[in-house]
């Protein structure tokens, strides 16, 4: 009750429902429809499968959330994921120790983040153009390194990133939980997080006031790149091989997850809890389309449609824009 005294309004449930991001509705609707329509959906095996499939997407989407909170976008995360996976796999296959391979991949993720961040934060270039440029560069490097082929013949221990079990839970779930916890602390308990929200709110004012807004904006892109590198290990382990173009399109799912999760492209509104729901919604949507026998081609179109519909509806409800 002390809350009401300091002026924080108490929302009734109806207000909460009216303001809940589209992902909540989509997830609820999809779950009910799929449970009724396909017997295979509401089984432990399938739900575990969904959670495992969604791990890579969630980790990338967490980084994307911070980028979008700063009113930016990172289209290069998909190809960067492919490149990190390829580099890690190539190094492991040619006999480097695993920690070196992991270090190299993380460095590459961070390097792409630094280039993106420097051009966007310090030179004020539009984020979608800069990251489209690095999109092409990452894609080229990955295909040139492998001559367009997949990297196979990985040693067995790499599969631990996907198949390993720790304290009863699969490693990808642990990785997602860890990424969420770290991002949560960074976003809500540190200066970095407060800057992330503030940059989205009014970057211009921050810069004019002499704060280090540009530096923190650069760090946001670096963090997204590093998370993407981590996600690439799970992806590589799951497929037991690395493909140079495997990540292309993943950035789109990540953007969809972030937007469905209620993070707005303006004014630094949103957060990572919504993104988890959003990633689950995208994962359940894809899983459901799979179970219903919808071809991957249609799935691509459906996800494109869902994201536009979600943003459009949120915009009409006055949540975004």
């Amino acid at each position, binding site marked *: 009750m002390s809350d009401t005294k300091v002026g924080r309004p108490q929302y009734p449930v109806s207000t909460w429902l009216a303001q809940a991001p589209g992902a909540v509705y989509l997830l609820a609707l999809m779950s009910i429809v799929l449970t009724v329509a396909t017997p295979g959906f509401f089984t432990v095996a399938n739900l575990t499968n969904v959670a495992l499939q969604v791990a890579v997407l969630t980790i990338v989407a967490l980084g994307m959330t911070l980028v979008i909170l700063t009113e930016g976008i990172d289209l290069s995360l998909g190809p960067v994921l492919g490149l990190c996976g390829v580099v890690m796999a190539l190094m492991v296959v040619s006999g480097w120790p695993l920690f070196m391979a992991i270090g190299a991949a993380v460095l590459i993720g961070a390097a792409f983040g630094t280039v993106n961040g420097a051009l966007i934060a310090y030179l004020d270039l539009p984020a979608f153009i800069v990251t489209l440029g690095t999109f092409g560069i990452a894609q080229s490097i990955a295909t040139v390194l492998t001559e367009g082929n997949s990297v196979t013949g990985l040693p067995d221990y790499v599969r631990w990133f996907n198949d390993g079990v720790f304290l009863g839970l699969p490693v990808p779930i642990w990785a997602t939980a860890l990424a969420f916890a770290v991002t949560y602390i960074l976003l809500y308990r540190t200066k970095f997080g407060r800057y992330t929200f503030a940059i989205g709110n009014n970057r211009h004012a921050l810069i004019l006031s002499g704060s280090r807004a540009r530096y923190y904006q650069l760090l946001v892109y670096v963090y997204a790149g590093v998370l993407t590198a981590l996600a690439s290990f799970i992806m590589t382990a799951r497929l037991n091989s690395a493909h140079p173009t495997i990540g292309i399109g993943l950035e789109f799912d990540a953007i969809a997850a972030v937007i469905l999760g209620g993070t707005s492209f303006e004014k630094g509104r949103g957060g990572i809890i919504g993104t988890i729901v959003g990633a689950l919604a995208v994962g359940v949507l894809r899983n459901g389309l799979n179970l219903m026998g919808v071809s991957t081609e249609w799935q*691509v179109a459906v996800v494109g449609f869902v994201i536009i519909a979600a943003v459009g509806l949120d*915009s009409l409800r006055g949540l975004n824009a």
Partner: protein
Amino acid sequence: MRAETATASVYGDRREVFGLSPDRLFVVVSRLTALVVLCVALSVFTPYFLTWSNIINVLRHAAPLFLMSAGLTLVVLTGGIDLSVGAVLGLAACIAASFITSGYPVFGIVAALAVGLSCGLVNGLLVAYARIPSFIATYGMLWIANGLAYVFMKGEVIYGLPAPFRVIGTGFVGPLPVPVLIMIGTLLVLHVLLHRTRLGRGIYAIGGNPVAARLSGMPVQRRLVFVYATSGLMASFAALVIIARTNAADVSLGEEQLLPAIAAVCLGGTSLFGGVGGVAGTAVGSLILALVLNGMNLLGVKTFWQAGVLGGIILLSVLADQLVGRRISRRTA
């Protein structure tokens, strides 16, 4: 009015050259230099470059590239972006090729143009009326068009288009290839539209200062719909010229077009913040890009590098313009 005269006198007498402010002068000079340097370098390094058939080849590649990126230029001039041009081009190409080879050429052409126009219209409505950021709306459209193209083609490749249709890609009028004539015609129409009509000036005004444009009572939303629809229509127009040249269509066609389209606009010196630039620049940009791709081909550079080179060109050209623009504005201030 007073503000306008003030800015005019800042640049006015002393700093303007050929009516261009210093930062625009840098754009024009750097692009023309790039064009000349590329031509000279390629003639020196590859004996095959300076042959009539290769020059025709370069121009034939530049034409559809220009058609696609000219529509995109209008969108960029309003301060938006259309990431769906490549995918819409791919979808239109698949639809046109499929109907034309089944014996319905007129219907195929009309259907392709209609599909491009409607994708663009949807983009425009989403951006102008639903107020979705343009890169999100058109990125969603990218995947919708890609998905539809896959569904439509079912993994097939269509080839063997009829000779009368192929004229728009491979034909000649006198010594000039038909695609080049189409390119020149489109350039003239769009240039006049942008610089001699109220609609065209409005497009610059929206990009230059959207708030002022709205407050001045301009139909901003309708003009936005117009530019996105034009972009979609031009992409499908480019699709017709491409399939007429290559004599084939498959789904991967559209996936390779987005980076070149954006690169041609950036190379053309149109500002990505809107309000500055034009289609003449984009024509030069398309020529430079066609030369680069032709040169890579002649020098035997693997196609794996293409995306990276295009990405690098995009970064380099926006970076150079931004750095030079900043340095000049700092000196002025």
